[in-house]
């Protein structure tokens, strides 16, 4: 097996705020294979955006701090570095698109100029060359009348069009990894599907890997090859998309699935919200972060932080329920082959 394109291990990020220090990311590990898509799933505030911003060096410091861990792109740690192998990490090696395309583009600069910028900076294109390439890129992301559109300003674009322009900008220097931070959250449902299809097609064309941050399990099912579920600053379950969806091994993943509406005709189950709210990360819990909300919590959960326990090949769950001494009696929870 080839080494993964990106290996993140034990990443920890803190923020100083008015109220104290927030431990937003408390030891996150995941890998991304070349050409594949990893979805990072979790509710608001679970640390998924902070994780990828740390990779890109976008954490404002201060008040932010990277407390430890590493992120190796092709074996080289990129945390705190600007270039690897002579190439700029940001913009050239890794492209990134954001949640709100309306506010993520400079309002007083033409779309064309903004797409051309990374080419001029990283590739040394002249302004004319870069603009020509920018128009090609706009065509590639299926914006009609690309040449005319390139001379327009962001306020003249619709949300979906802007997100396409963002994508064109992010892939302009042919990055090996594209990070999409909730790329469709701010868009209409119909536009969402178009953007996701576009990302898939571009991935097939260019062979780049994608990290997709989302809280929408529908998007995950549609796009991802692998999934990492985050809760309270930690990855609680990870594995292939089938493993996580059909053989969910963490009570939180189960809860998420039960809280998701389905369009299956025979669905008789009621939507089950997860009671309570995530823990206060000013004072992170001693044991498992999900313990106060977990219907299956045990004494150990409140006192000891669980470590990742393999339930199958490349499928891990950070949950005491998988411990050899645990009763293994939770309905619906997948315990792996060894314990059935």
């Amino acid at each position: 097996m080839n080494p993964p394109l990106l290996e993140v291990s034990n990443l920890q990020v803190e923020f100083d705020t008015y109220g104290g220090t927030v431990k937003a990311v408390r030891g996150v590990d995941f890998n991304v294979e070349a050409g594949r898509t990893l979805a990072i799933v979790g509710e608001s505030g679970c640390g998924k955006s902070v994780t990828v911003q740390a990779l890109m060096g976008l954490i404002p410091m201060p008040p932010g701090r990277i407390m430890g861990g590493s992120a190796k792109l092709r074996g080289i740690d990129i945390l705190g570095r600007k270039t690897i192998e002579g190439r700029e990490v940001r913009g050239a090696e890794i492209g990134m698109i954001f949640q709100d395309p309306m506010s993520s583009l400079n309002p007083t600069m033409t779309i064309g100029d903004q797409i051309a910028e990374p080419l001029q900076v990283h590739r040394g294109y002249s302004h004319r060359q870069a603009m020509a390439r920018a128009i090609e890129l706009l065509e590639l992301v299926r914006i009609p009348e690309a040449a005319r559109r390139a001379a327009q300003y962001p306020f003249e674009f619709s949300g979906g069009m802007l997100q396409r322009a963002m994508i064109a900008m992010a892939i302009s220097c042919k990055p090996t990894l594209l990070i999409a931070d909730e790329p469709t959250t701010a868009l209409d449902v119909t536009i969402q599907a178009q953007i996701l299809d576009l990302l898939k097609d571009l991935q097939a064309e260019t062979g780049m890997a994608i990290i997709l941050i989302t809280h929408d399990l529908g998007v995950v099912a549609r796009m991802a090859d692998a999934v990492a579920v985050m809760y309270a600053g930690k990855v609680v379950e990870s594995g292939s998309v089938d493993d996580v969806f059909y053989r969910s091994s963490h009570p939180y993943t189960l809860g998420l699935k039960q809280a998701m509406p389905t369009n299956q005709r025979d669905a008789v189950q009621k939507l089950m919200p997860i009671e309570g709210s995530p823990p206060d990360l000013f004072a992170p819990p001693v044991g498992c972060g999900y313990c106060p909300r977990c219907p299956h919590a045990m004494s150990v959960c409140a006192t000891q932080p669980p470590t990742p326990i393999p339930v199958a090949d490349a499928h891990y769950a950070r949950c005491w329920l998988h411990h050899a001494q645990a009763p293994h009696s939770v309905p619906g929870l997948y315990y792996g082959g060894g314990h059935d």
Partner: protein
Amino acid sequence: MTTPVSLSPVSQSPVSDAPVLNPADFAPITQRADVQAISRPSQSYWQDAWVRLKKNRRAIVSLWLIVGLLAFAMLGPWLWQIDPARQDIDQISQAPGAERSATVVAPYEFRGGQAQAGFESGTGLRLGAEANSQAVRLLWDAVPGAGGYRLYRNIFPVDDARAFGLPIAEFPNPQAGYYEDRLDLRPDTYFYSLVTLNDQGALTDDYQTLEVPVHRVITVDEVRERNLVAAEETLAVGDEVFLALHPLGTDYLGRDMLARLMAGARVSLFIGIVAPFLFVLLGVTYGATAGFLGGRVDQLMMRLADFVVALPFLLFMILFQVVFGIGPGESGIVPLLVALVVLSWPSTARLVRGQILQIRQEAYISASRLLGAKSSYLVWRHMIPNTMGVILVTLTFAVPSAIFTEAFLSFIGMGVAPPTASWGSMSNEGLATMLTHPHELIFPALFISITVLAFNLLGDGLRDALDARMRSFE
């Protein structure tokens, strides 16, 4: 299915590393805390704002400064009971901490050319008696060939450029002469120059100069008249008495600076605080009415506000001062106040109207309406409290600009009328003597600056504490 993407945890064999656990650890938790409970105590909007304001050291220092300034204006005149209008003619334009001692002497009497004991000998231009602030008595011998003399006085030594200073007397005869200078003498060093005139009475190059240190003296009658010592105390010539104390010196009319600064503080702070309070009140009422009524009335009301905003502010302030006309004996405070209110309300009105319009759109207003709330309830319970923060910040920032306006107008002579003191009018008076007695300008200017600074910093702090959306990135 193969898993192309895998999670590789740091501890690859977690189970073996796990702490030793016993079966009791795996018992389900039955007793659990209410998961809906919020872990930290909740604070009301104002409590939260107060906590944040208290953390802002600059704002708190400013708050104390403002309290101090108010105390200076209100309580000061009780502690320092000197009439700000009283003129101390012995001490005019006196710098703070100047020498106040005076020697008691006999009343002035004319001596003519008669030299005092101990001053009989000497040649040229010389003193005929001990020089003091009562009189400087000069004697001189005849200069051969002279047609007459002219006497000058200066406070600087005579240099090559021959600036002799003030000509005080001219003598047409060439004999030895005398002069008694009693013109506005202060405890200082004077340089007298006697220039020889020729037969035609024109100046010649020949002159002699004399440096005369003058010390302050006072007669018994003057001491009694000014109550400088207790009535029962006896006084004799040669005793030393002290003139009235002026901790911050006196102005060009000999008025006590400290007392005037206190009186000025009353005027400046009164205008600076009352005027904003009035126009913010007017603006809030107007803006809230317009915003709440909406529609055509709102359009009409705001059009009027737009026009008032378009008036050039300071020009119309001046114009209003002219229109009101300050009659004899009036201080001019009321016209200033009225003009400020009439011209300043629209900005608050616009702000409050905007806020009200915004709040009207909020879902909780609709919800309240659906529950049967009356308009007056909506205004008092929801709209006013939600705009209170913005109003308070506006009010705080309105104070320094009102103080500036008063100072500006008084400075160009269109503000309060003399003899009423305000910091602005004091600065105006101080400007004339800026080069020789800078303290007369510096003190009132300092008070204006400190007040404006304190209100500005408090306003910044309030804005940061009250509304995260308006927070400046300090």
